[in-house]
């Protein structure tokens, strides 16, 4: 009775149509190579009188190192290398935070910078610098990342609580709540800066636009564990975030422990954002540009989106840092200016493309 129309084409034995996982796996490898290339490029980039290649080759045992001065090693290994490593960690951390947050809120416009989480994390860090001398000495180099983490955590949780009702997130509420929370955190930060003394002010100045200029191995050591933990946790969230794209109850029926998954995601977002903000201030738009480009290329499957975001985010920020160092050399632009100059038009472009879908 119900014969299929004879005209339908007969598929080959097994077609992989609509399956982008093969492409995504290639992208992982390609982006890892890109990151490596960009890292080397960043190392070599800089004042020409430093024989960067020779230092690298010597350290790899491919050059005898004759004629290299101790300052050459110092510039490469204590100034440029920590800066590259920090840039990769922070870029990756910001991009992964963005991807996680977009999955959590089920919207490609959610981003820690845009919805005020970075501002909250910044407030956490600034309060520690200005008010928390005791905490500083107690937790050492982790004081800033930890306080930024708590600032980010409170903000993310608050946002989720305000913007999500019955498992549905209103993107309008989310963005507006983000503006309010960001403004409040900014005001509180302003008050703290007002009461800060001169020494504290020097610590605070770079928070405005974000910069990798102060990179040291100590900063890397304070940032790396937290961001690496966030990277390590994110694959375990991929399946849940994919299911969440169908809504909370659908995810529950697919066997996802939804509440726990959401809590872990919020903590991971706050940790990665907090550690990034503590180390380099608020660098905007990485978390929105990188995942969005990747979704266009490999699709929204978080299994691949999250690792690819880590890799491309690292490469993107390292490149942006290269631009910020060379554009007005020998001075340098704060990197936040570079990412905003690329990211803000991009954000507008997404808005234009998605017009009408906004009240999802």
């Amino acid at each position: 009775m119900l014969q299929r129309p004879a005209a339908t084409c007969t598929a080959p034995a097994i077609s992989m149509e609509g399956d982008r996982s093969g492409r995504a796996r290639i992208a992982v490898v390609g982006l890892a190579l890109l990151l490596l290339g960009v890292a080397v490029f960043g190392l070599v980039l800089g004042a020409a009188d430093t024989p960067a290649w020779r230092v690298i080759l010597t350290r790899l045992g491919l050059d005898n190192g004759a004629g290299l001065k101790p300052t050459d090693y110092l510039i490469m290994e204590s100034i440029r290398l920590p800066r590259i490593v920090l840039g990769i960690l922070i870029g990756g951390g910001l991009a992964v935070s963005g991807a996680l947050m977009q999955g959590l809120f089920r919207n490609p416009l959610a981003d820690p910078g845009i919805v005020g989480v970075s501002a909250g994390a910044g407030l956490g860090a600034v309060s520690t610098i200005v008010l928390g001398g005791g905490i500083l000495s107690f937790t050492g180099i982790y004081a800033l990342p930890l306080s930024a983490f708590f600032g980010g955590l409170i903000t993310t949780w608050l946002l989720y609580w305000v913007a999500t009702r019955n498992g549905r997130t209103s993107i309008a509420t989310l963005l507006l709540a983000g503006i309010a929370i960001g403004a409040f955190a900014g005001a509180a930060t302003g008050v703290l800066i007002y009461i800060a003394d001169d020494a504290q002010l020097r610590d605070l100045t770079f928070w405005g636009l974000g910069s990798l200029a102060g990179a040291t191995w100590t900063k890397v050591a304070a940032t790396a564990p937290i961001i690496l933990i966030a990277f390590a946790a994110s694959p375990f969230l991929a399946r849940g975030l994919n299911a969440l794209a169908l809504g909370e109850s659908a995810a529950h029926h697919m066997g996802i422990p939804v509440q726990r998954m959401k809590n872990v995601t919020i903590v991971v977002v706050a940790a990665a954002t907090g550690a990034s903000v503590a180390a380099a201030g608020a660098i905007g738009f990485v978390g929105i540009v990188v995942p969005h480009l990747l979704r266009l290329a490999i699709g929204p499957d978080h299994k691949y989106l999250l690792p690819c975001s880590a890799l491309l985010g690292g490469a993107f920020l390292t490149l942006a840092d290269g631009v910020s160092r060379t554009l007005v050399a020998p001075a340098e632009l704060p990197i936040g200016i570079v990412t905003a100059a690329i990211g803000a038009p991009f954000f507008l472009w997404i808005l234009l493309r998605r017009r009408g879908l906004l009240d999802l």
Partner: protein
Amino acid sequence: MTIEARGIEVAYGKRRILHGVDFSARPGEVTMIIGPNGSGKTTLMRALIGEVPAKGAVSINGKALSRHAAHELAAIRAVLPQDTALAFPFTVTEVVGLGVTAGPILANAHARRQRINDALDAVDLPGFAGRYYQELSGGERQRVQLARVLCQIWNPVSHRHGPSWLFLDEPVSSLDIRHQLMIMELAANYARRGGGVIAVMHDLNLTAMFGDRITLISSGEVAATGTPQEVLQDDTLADVFGCALKVGEVPRNHLFVLPQAISAG
């Protein structure tokens, strides 16, 4: 190994929607829930799957609903909601793949792909694998979601968990007549092979044709329950739906329901 619900009461805020509903379903059968708009069909289904807090007791495969972990439940029952929104631009393959991921573990990528293709064939969407879900028509989306749900509990009976359960809230509401029949036959076939199907329906003729048992809900209470012959009575239906209906029989015990004028009630 059944679904049993006793004395289900659900309230949204102060408004009580279900007033002590008893419901049961057996594997091997298609159990239909019918009733007017707003009578509480979806609410009853949500109570049966633990989506709303409900007073009363619900058990599935001999164990209280609340004592199953989320992953345990996912292994024995899948739910097709009345409507589904999708957040990101997934392809049809990827959406159905989400169901495969939620289902029993398959040996390799080839087997997973085969499962996706089989499911797409079952809902008559060959050639749709590469399309974007967001660019499909309403009826096509509904069938993609059904394919996803099917993949989650592909086997009607599993050795470890007993019978599997398909919960379908208006599975054919936006389908053309050919696909209505096709999807109902698919559901009936799932039941013939030992699974349980619980479907909320509006089309009384499809209900008569494919329902083994019917529960008729009226204003949050069970108005009638039993076989099609027992439930599909002129007076009962006219009472509950508020319009005159004529139930007839075509050869081989097939009931049909013929609507009359509303005022004639």
